[in-house]
């Protein structure tokens, strides 16, 4: 549990704290389903502290994220995370790479908040004491310590998303993948998540339709029909994306 990062102790947001990022490499990856290519010969590497991914619905953005943690196996090509194959060493990759899904209801597994945070820790073999500490620290970190004993179905959408994120962060990953994190949130909670994301020391790869969320990212990638079509600074790629979506 030595990786339990303190509340951004002096580290600038997304500064790539030593140890809190990974090198993710797609080598000529294609994912073909029912004759359709969800990803088409994608070769790209990610190592920046913040990477945004934009694209129309069905362009392959979610598939890309799922490939990183081995939820989808490429039809051809390989995905490596710090040298580990995402499919063959999925377990090790998932230990250091978290994924926050769009709908927190589909990600929260236990009826009570503290139990759900413990779920991830138990799966990765933490001891009972470490689990107790991890749950407390995980909730504290996002300012939701008060929700520990609450029942999930009593929480608001914004609270559920924070609980889901706390669960992902509890195992101290180096990278967190976000799949349209604000899609189900109202404005107030969207702002809250934006603040949390801004202060996150871990490396973050964020798929989002909410372009303002990605505005200060060092790098944004645009995906279209399973291919990377633009790759550059947030300013240029987002401007391009806005233009293309007119």
């Amino acid at each position, binding site marked *: 549990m030595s990786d339990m990062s303190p509340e951004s102790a002096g580290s600038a947001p997304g500064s790539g704290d030593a140890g809190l990022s990974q090198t993710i490499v797609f080598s000529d990856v294609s994912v073909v*389903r029912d004759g359709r290519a969800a990803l088409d010969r994608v070769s790209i590497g990610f190592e920046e502290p913040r990477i945004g991914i934009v694209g129309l619905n069905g362009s392959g953005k979610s598939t890309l994220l799922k490939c990183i943690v081995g*939820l*989808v196996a490429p039809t051809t090509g390989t995905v490596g995370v710090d040298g580990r194959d995402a499919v063959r060493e*999925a*377990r090790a990759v998932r230990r250091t790479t978290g994924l926050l899904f769009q*709908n927190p209801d589909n990600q929260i597994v*236990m009826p009570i908040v503290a139990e759900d945070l413990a*779920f991830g820790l138990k*799966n990765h073999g933490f001891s009972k004491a470490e689990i107790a500490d991890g749950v407390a620290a995980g909730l504290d970190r996002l300012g939701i310590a008060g929700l520990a004993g609450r*029942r999930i179905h009593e929480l608001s959408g914004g609270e559920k998303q924070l609980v889901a994120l706390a669960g992902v962060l509890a195992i101290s990953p180096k990278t967190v993948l976000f799949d349209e994190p604000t899609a189900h949130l109202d404005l107030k909670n969207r702002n809250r998540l934006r603040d949390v994301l801004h202060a996150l020391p871990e490396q973050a790869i964020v798929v989002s339709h909410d372009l303002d969320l990605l505005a200060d990212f060092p790098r944004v990638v645009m995906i279209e029909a399973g291919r990377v079509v633009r790759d550059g600074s947030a300013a240029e790629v987002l401007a391009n994306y806005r233009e293309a979506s007119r």
Partner: protein
Amino acid sequence: MIAGLARPGTSPLHRTAAGTKLAALAIAATTLFFVDDSRLLAVAGAVALALARSTGASFAEIGRDLKGPALVLAVLGLADWWLVDGATALVVVLRLGAIALLAHAVTATTTTAELSEVLERLFAPAERLGLLDAARAALTVTLAMRFVPLIAEEAREIREAQAARGLQGSVLALAVPLLVKVLVRAQDLADAIDARGFPPDRPTSDTEPKTNLRPGSP
């Protein structure tokens, strides 16, 4: 919905081990089965009622809890009286009533957590024989508990939306969207469970597939 039927309290039954209570209930129920004397059954019923009361529940509370079973009992008693004879009806009603009260006493004093533990111990031999995976089974049951309130609410919302449009009571219009939503959710949920590292490694080598991977699997 996750709240069980157990009531908090400190009665002697509360303090008795769950396994003991369950075994005792099973033995008592089986024994009563072979008793045909209505006087003995009446005594058993009185003892059962006393036990139910000893848990701290009032007569009113017991009555409320056993409303459903009492109704079933009344119907069956009448059926027996009409189709067989009064003596049989009496025996049946007394026996079932006594058993229902005993079961109530156990349920009211045993928490879901305690019952879980007993189930776990009961299934341990099956697990050692490789017939059952306790972690997967436990997760499945807990997941069901976790999702009942959410799905119940979604069902309610669908019904309200229907009523607002003036279509009441179409079973299809309720069940189809509900099930479709559930099936789509099942796929995302499975991904989330996998992504969070389930299942935990077992001490011995684990050759079961941990993920649902097929090339290009969604």
